[in-house]
Each structure stands twice: as C-alpha cells, then as structure tokens.
C-alpha cells in the first residue's frame, strides 16, 4: 500500500516522478475539456477534520479531473462530535467503499493513524504543524516550471517556521531536489532544535536578501498566538516582511512564493503580492496538477493517451 504522508525521506526520483506526471496534467488542465478518464470508477474521500477551503477544493478538482468520484466528510456534522472514536469514523467511511482517503487534521500524525486503519492509500492533506506534502510538491513544481531543475537554487523560507507544516514539508522536498534552503525567522518562531535539518537558519532577512533566488513567505498565523511571540505586526513587517523596498533589492530574476492565504501589509506588501514575479496563483493552479499526479500514482491509474 503506497501512501503520501511526508516529504521526509522521499527519494529524488519519487519527487521527480510526481513532478513529471504533474507537468502532463498541467497540459491536461489547459485543454477545452480538462479531464481524463484515468481513475474512472474510483472513489476518493476527502476527510478534512480541520477546516480548509482551498486545499479541499484543489483536491476535489483533481479527483474530478481524473474522472473519479469524491465523497466528503466534514467534522462539524459528523459522529465525532457525538463521541465516536477517530478509528470508528475511519472504518465506517471505509466500509462505504472507497479507494483512497485525503486526510487533513489539526493533530500531528493523523494521516499515519488513518493509514494504519484504513487499508487504502492515504494522502496527508496537512497534519497539525507537521507535514503537508502536496504543498511542497506544488511549490517544487512551480519552481521547476519557472527555473528548470532546483539544483543550487537559493531559497529563503521566511516567517513562522515553528508552527508551519508548509515549511517542514518544503525543507525536505526542496533540499532533496538540490536547492539550498535558509530559514529566516524571529527566534521565537524558529523550531527549538533544527539539528539535522538540511537548512541554514538566520534571524536577519536583510543579510541574505540579495543572494536569494526565491523568497518563500509564510503567513503570520494569528491563530497560533502570533502577536504574542513578536512585538507587533508593524515590527514584524519591518524586520521580516517582504516590503516593496526589500523587493526592489532582490535579484532581478528572483521570485516570490506564498502558500496563502496572504496577509497583505504584514508579511507581504500589496504591490509585491500583485507583481508578476509573485507566483502565488501559479502555485494554486499547479496544486491541482500535482494532486492529480499523486492520486494517479497512488491509485495506479491507467494512461489513456
């Protein structure tokens, strides 16, 4: 049984194979009828125990573009609220008949637990502050489509690393593809111990700004107690925000990524967000193609063309 739970330990060839297929699906999605019959007859459940709009829509679009059916689960109306265990919920939904599960949950490791019980391929759609592997793949796809191979690319991931599953996923995927990743963060938002991570770390964005090919901005997550771990949003912007002034100091061919949702005026100035070198909407579009590639490979879809 093949799952996609984490980018940690994924081989370069595995990542590249996902990206190669995703390149094909980018082309499929540009057709007048953006749909292939690769997974016809399959059913994929999106089980989002933590609320999400865009990731869920992106997965649903990917499932439908492969001609599979979706079932969706939302915790607000589920038996979990009535005291059912997570395992019973998973087994119940599994018993309805399905071929894969996409799991998002606010707790670390939820997708691992579901994979243990479900006996179908499981895709981690984000577990707590741990991993979000399809986000990393779509980021890598966006960069590869823009720059070619990531080897030697200098990437700065800026912001709340400590609470970011996006950062934890990107670090391993990007470095496996040969990029040099630096984490830029206030000390209170850096993970306590990054020994063994394939990264450099700094608390000074301006030190490395002009060396970067990619500035990857993370959202300042107010719901994680954001404002209590740095003095104020204004000061955060001054030190860590990609202001217009900082943007102008970047290398002319460098690009800006952001997993969304963006908080304009805090981590990114509005003018930067709207610049053509901000690839934010490319990331969103590539997300559908990457998720198609992952579903296609995990479900053993057949090529029809």
């Amino acid at each position: 049984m093949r799952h996609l739970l984490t980018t940690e330990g994924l081989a370069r060839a595995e990542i590249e194979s996902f990206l190669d297929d995703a390149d094909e699906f980018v082309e499929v999605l540009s057709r007048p009828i953006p749909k292939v019959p690769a997974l016809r007859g399959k059913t994929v459940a999106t089980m989002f125990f933590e609320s999400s709009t865009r990731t869920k829509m992106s997965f649903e679009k990917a499932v439908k573009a492969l001609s599979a059916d979706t079932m969706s689960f939302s915790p607000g109306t589920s038996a979990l609220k009535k005291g059912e265990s997570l395992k019973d919920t998973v087994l119940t939904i599994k018993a309805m008949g399905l071929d894969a599960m996409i799991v998002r949950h606010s707790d670390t490791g939820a997708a691992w637990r579901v994979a243990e019980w479900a006996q179908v391929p499981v895709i981690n759609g984000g577990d707590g502050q741990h991993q979000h592997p399809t986000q990393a793949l779509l980021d890598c796809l966006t960069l590869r489509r823009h720059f070619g191979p990531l080897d030697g690319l200098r990437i700065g991931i800026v912001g709340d690393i400590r609470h970011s599953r996006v950062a934890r996923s990107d670090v391993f995927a990007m470095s496996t593809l040969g990029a040099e990743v630096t984490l830029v963060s206030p000390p209170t938002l850096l993970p306590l111990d990054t020994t063994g991570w394939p990264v450099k770390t700094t608390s000074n964005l301006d030190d490395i700004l002009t060396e970067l090919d990619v500035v990857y901005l993370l959202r300042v997550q107010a719901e994680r107690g954001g404002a209590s771990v740095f003095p104020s949003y204004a000061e955060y912007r001054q030190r860590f925000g990609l202001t217009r002034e900082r943007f102008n100091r970047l290398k002319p061919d460098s690009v800006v990524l952001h997993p969304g949702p963006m908080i304009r005026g805090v981590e990114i100035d509005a003018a930067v967000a709207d610049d053509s070198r901000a690839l934010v909407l490319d990331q969103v579009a590539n997300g559908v193609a990457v998720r198609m590639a992952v579903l296609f490979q995990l479900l053993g879809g057949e090529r029809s063309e």
Partner: protein
Amino acid sequence: MSEVLIEGGLVLGPSGPVEADVLVREGRVVEVGRALTAPDADRLDARGCWVGPGFVDIHAHFREPGHEYKEDIASGSAAAAAGGYTAVVAMPNTQPAIDSGHLARYVADRGREVGLVEVVPSGAISEGRLGEKLSHVDELWAAGVRIFTDDGDTVADAGLLRRSMEYVAQLGGVIAQHAIDSGLAAGGHMNEGLVSSRMGMQGVPSLAEEIVIARDLALVRATCVRYHVQHVSSAGAVALIAAAKSEGLAVTAEVTPHHLTFTDVEVRSMNPVFKMMPPLRTETDVAALREALADGVIDCVATDHAPHADHEKDTTFEDAPFGVTGLEWAAAAVHTAVGLDIERFFARMSSGPALVAQLADRHGQPVGVGSHANLVVFDPTAATVAETTRSQSSNSPYLGRSWTGAVRFTLLAGVVTHASVGVPS
C-alpha cells in the same frame, strides 16, 4: 493450609544470595536450605531463577471506583500478580478521588476480596484533587494510607503544599509529587526537543519537572516531611534528587520501566502507546535514569500503570490521554534495560519501594526463616515476548516486543497467585 516448596533457585536471603530450596507454610517461610523434602508440598521448579521478595509497585492506577471500563481492582490485581507483584499502591485519581477514609477502605477491602495482591490505597493531598483545600488526611491515615499525592495533577499552590507537608510530616506519612509545572507543560504532548521540533508537536520541557522539584525541595527543608518524587524522567531531575539526598533531606524517588527503556524517538511512530506524563525523553536522560537506579539515587521502580480503553487510544497521538500500562512486564523491562545484579534488582523492585510505602513489615523482606511468604520467582535469562495482557486495557508499549526475564511464580502470603508454567493445584 498447604505447603509450597520452591526448589533449586538462587534465593536472596538476609545475608545475600544462596542456592537453596524454600519451604513455605501458613504464609511464612519456614525453612531455607539445600535439598529440602516436604512430601505434601506443592513443588515449584525454580532452577535457573531468582527467588526473592515479591515486587512492590508504589504507583499504579486501578481506576476503581469510577473508571471500571479501563481497569478495576480485579483486573489490575491479576496483571500485578502476573508481573510478580505482591503489593500495589493504588493512586487516588479515581472518580470520586480517594480523599476520605471510607473510600480508602473500599479500595483496600476490594483488594482483599480479590486476593491476588495487597492493594494499598494512597490518598489525595487535596479534597477532590482540586488543589484547593486539604483532604481528610486523618481519616485517610487511619484507613492505612501512608502516601499522599494528587498524582495526575501537580500540587501547584505552594501554600497548600506547605500546609499538607506540615500536617503529613507530623503523622509520619509521605508527600508524593507528580512534578510537572502546568504553565511550562501547557499544550505539550511529548518531550520538547529535537524530535518534537521535527514533528511540529508542542513539547513538555524537562524544565517543567525540574522547576517543581526545586521549589518543593525548599518546602521540604522547611517542613522536614518525607518527600517522594514520582516518575522521574530527566537527567536534571536526577541531579536535583542526588543533591537533596547528599544534603540529608528525607527525599526518595521512583522511575518507571518505560522511562528506563524508551526515548522520544518512539513518538515518531505516532502511536499513543508512547504517550505519558512525564513524556519519554532523550538518550541522555535514559542513561542518567539507569545510572541513578543502579547507584540508588533513585530508590525504586514504579510502573505508573495507567490503563486507558482501546477506543481512547484509537485516535491521534495528541488527542489520546496520557498513560500506558506495564505491570506485567515491568520486571523484565527493567532487567533488560539496566541489568542489575540480584541484590540491587530486589532492592529497587521490592525492598526499596516497600520502605517508601511503609510496607516493610510484610513486603520486600529478604527470604529467611520467619519472613512473610510474599515472594516472586524470576527467571533472569528467559527470553519472552509480551503477547497478551490481563489488564482490561492494552495501551502498552511493551506488547509485541521481546524482553529478557520472566516472572515464573508469584506467592502472596504463601499462596501461588501466578504461575507461568504448569503448577500442581
């Protein structure tokens, strides 16, 4: 009453280990010597085994009254007997909490009815374990309680803790602290460090334990109470306890088999059988705990046997409750992890905890003529795989793994309460 003859073991007697048979009658050891004959006795084969005082667990959760779907005194006692235990101190975090005399007597009485181990109640420090006012300490004392603890929660209020220490000190009892600062531990599920950073999980730093112990030691100096640190998990806590002992304070400490065995790396499995408070820590901590147990800075092993029903652990690591079971494999796990010689093994498993819990008049005694026949026969070389449990709950990190050492027989007051191989009836 029938006789039992334990044949051919290495017996931990009053002046050290001797190869001998042990004859038991009417709850006492009546003879220790070579080639004993007792034609009417039930014979237990102890060749290759250690024969010593039954193990004493001063920290287990039997969940009765209130949470009998996790465990009750009968199932907990069965697990304990299978683990070689003859006495177990039941923690008071039941529903209702054991905070008054009649509740403590209920626990002890149920233990006697079941009859597999002596179940000794401990009592809450505060009424309802709410950390607000003193529990019914005098009633509890009269009902046989010697260890007072709000285990599961820390007594955070230093004023309340001081008053309880003063009161319990005058009686001669023990204040046992579950030492975790709730502010530093807030939101934490595992050890704070390298692994939690990688997993994006909120951590419980060792500091949370050390800060409470350091504060409590100041109160111990002021009140002269006998103070016991429950489930020590970190190298820093070991250092604090060692210093307090050299200072001459009446401080004792326990360590669990799981903290001697596993590190926080296990949490990467995402399996809640590795979730407990305090959490599994690092290799450095495990090494310090093993050394402290070997050299006596830590007085005893205690299981913190904490049953939770399967459905409570059938969830994410973060969502699952703290606590794991371990009574049945504690001795084997400790033996596997630390490899103590026979004298220190029984000192930490039997006589040490019996002293802390003030049970030494009947438990933890060296095996000699006249000693209480609360005994265990432990095979130190057997390789065993933990496959099933007598507990109602199976939230155990020991299950499915192999261990060196196995409990062959347990005797309570001269009666066999557990036999792992065929025993004549």
